[in-house]
């Protein structure tokens, strides 16, 4: 009886979290498309759907500026948060978010190379970014296996990889100044240059990767028990680690191809969700995607309205919030549950 009560209350708690996450996601979407230097009323938004995207100035702002940007923020936030949750679980390290261990930087380098090669298509950028992110995350994973994935080791590997990939990107930009993709706002992360041509390929790949991860959530939980225990349960741990990291790289890479090097969302959101919902993979992934999307979108809306008429890259807000959070995790007391 007592157990069933615990079980029920757990279900209710998770249900409430999904409700709150869903409402926040919807609120972020509505605010994202309606708030800005030119406020759009619900009537103007409905009018864009009813009369066509070119029917008025408001409809054009909605369809070609606000909607792609808002959707990109929602999708990228969800993707980076879910990628962070997966990477933290697979590497068993609470600091292992895509921005910190160099995964975003790997994707950024690949996007720079892609642009330098004259490839500007959305699919090409997303694929290049995925390859860069995957190479980085596999380098970290193999390094963690080889030298031990303690918190400190992983951060140092991240510092090294971030510096290396940053230097390589700078080299490309120095030698080919016309490659403007590594401009300052790309390094910080922002959504002002999002177009449907870049959004749709990245969104398709992100949705597929997230679907794949959700279908493997029990496997992610088993891997969290530790390599030997997971192997004892019949899992091919090497293969599954690679599959999980590949899907996480797909999420992070596609997000970077849209938003640039957006940091800390992959660290903060999974941590907060883990505290609220527990570490179970299904809810960790689902809620991280919901809250991550809402969080980045709300931050982006704040970034373009707080200092109007000036607009600051959303990455600056993320960094102001994320850096203290990172330090808090780094120095918090031991004895908390392992990932």
């Amino acid at each position, binding site marked *: 009886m*007592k*157990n069933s009560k*615990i*079980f029920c209350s*757990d279900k209710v708690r998770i249900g409430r979290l999904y409700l709150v996450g869903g409402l926040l996601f919807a609120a972020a979407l509505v605010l994202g498309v309606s708030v800005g230097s030119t406020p759009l009323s619900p009537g103007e938004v409905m009018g864009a759907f009813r009369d066509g995207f070119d029917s008025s100035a408001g409809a054009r702002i909605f369809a070609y500026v606000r909607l792609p940007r808002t959707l990109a923020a929602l999708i990228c936030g969800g993707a980076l948060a879910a990628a962070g949750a997966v990477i933290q679980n697979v590497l*068993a390290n609470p600091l292992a978010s895509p921005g910190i261990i160099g995964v975003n930087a790997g994707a950024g380098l690949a996007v720079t190379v892609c642009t330098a090669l004259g490839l500007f298509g959305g699919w090409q950028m997303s694929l290049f970014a995925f390859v860069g992110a995957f190479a980085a995350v596999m380098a970290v994973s193999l390094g963690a296996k080889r030298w031990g994935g303690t918190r400190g080791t992983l951060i140092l590997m991240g510092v090294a990889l971030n510096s290396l990939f940053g230097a390589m990107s700078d080299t490309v930009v120095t030698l080919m100044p016309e490659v403007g993709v590594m401009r300052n706002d790309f390094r910080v992360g922002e959504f002002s240059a999002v177009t449907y041509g870049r959004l749709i390929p990245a969104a398709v790949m992100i949705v597929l990767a997230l679907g794949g991860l959700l*279908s*493997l959530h*029990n*496997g992610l*939980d*088993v891997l*969290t*028990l*530790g390599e*030997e*225990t997971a*192997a*004892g*349960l*019949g*899992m*091919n741990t090497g293969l599954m680690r690679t599959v999980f990291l590949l899907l996480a790289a797909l999420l992070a890479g596609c997000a970077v191809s849209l938003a640039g090097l957006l940091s800390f969302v992959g660290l903060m959101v999974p941590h907060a969700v*883990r505290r609220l919902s*527990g*570490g*179970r993979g299904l809810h960790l992934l689902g809620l991280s995607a919901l809250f991550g999307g809402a969080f980045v979108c709300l931050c982006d809306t704040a970034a373009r309205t707080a200092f109007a008429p000036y607009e600051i890259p959303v990455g600056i807000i993320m960094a102001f919030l994320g850096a203290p959070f990172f330090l808090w995790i780094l120095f918090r007391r031991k004895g*908390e*549950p*392992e*990932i």
Partner: protein
Amino acid sequence: MIELKNLSAGYGGNPVIRGISAVFVPGEVVGVIGPNGAGKSTLLKAIRGMIPSLGGEVYLDGEHIAAMGRSELARRAAYLSQARRCPDMTVEQTVLHGRFPHLRYPHTYRDADRRMARAAMEKMDILALAGRPMSTLSGGMRQKVYIAMALAQDTPYILFDEPTVHLDITYQLALMRMMRTLAGEGRGIVAVMHDLPMAMTFSDRILVMQDGGAVCMGRPEEICRGDVIPRVFGVTVERFPDGKEYRYRME
């Protein structure tokens, strides 16, 4: 029956265990003892096919393990490793993962799996803790949860790698009694142990290992009578005159 024929295994092509032949039968507790580095843990992993064989064979109920997949092996023999994390999940969720090898992609647990998990928790007397996070449990209770996970795995054999490590004496004794109960139900138990008197008291047979090889295998009283223990460990173990229990002889 688990049958090892001249088994060698190790890491990176370097053998850690060499030429081991032994038989483990259902309904029996076999204690594997040996000094540090003797290859005890490697032996268990090799039995489960978790490290590559460098020679010899392992047969599980007459079938060569090379012919079995990972899940099939996990359905036949549960393996509890030494290194266990404290996962960020509840007791019930942890135990339920014992059913993982019985499922195919996407590994969605069924009602029958939940019933098996709850039965395993009941057996280990941890059903009341089902909703508790693992991080709130003591080391001994966590150990019980992992054993419940192995029970939920529902295998005819269970391989324990140093199950009593980090446990206080009460939990150690309770765990050893649980092993005897499991053997009484017809399961084959193979357990790596460090405490020689405890291993001899609770095991039906003892496998003594040294430097990657099997020194001898026999009933505890036979092992105790011979000179193997002083030769391998540099200590002496004696049997209480009026019972089945053993103790170190202080000289």
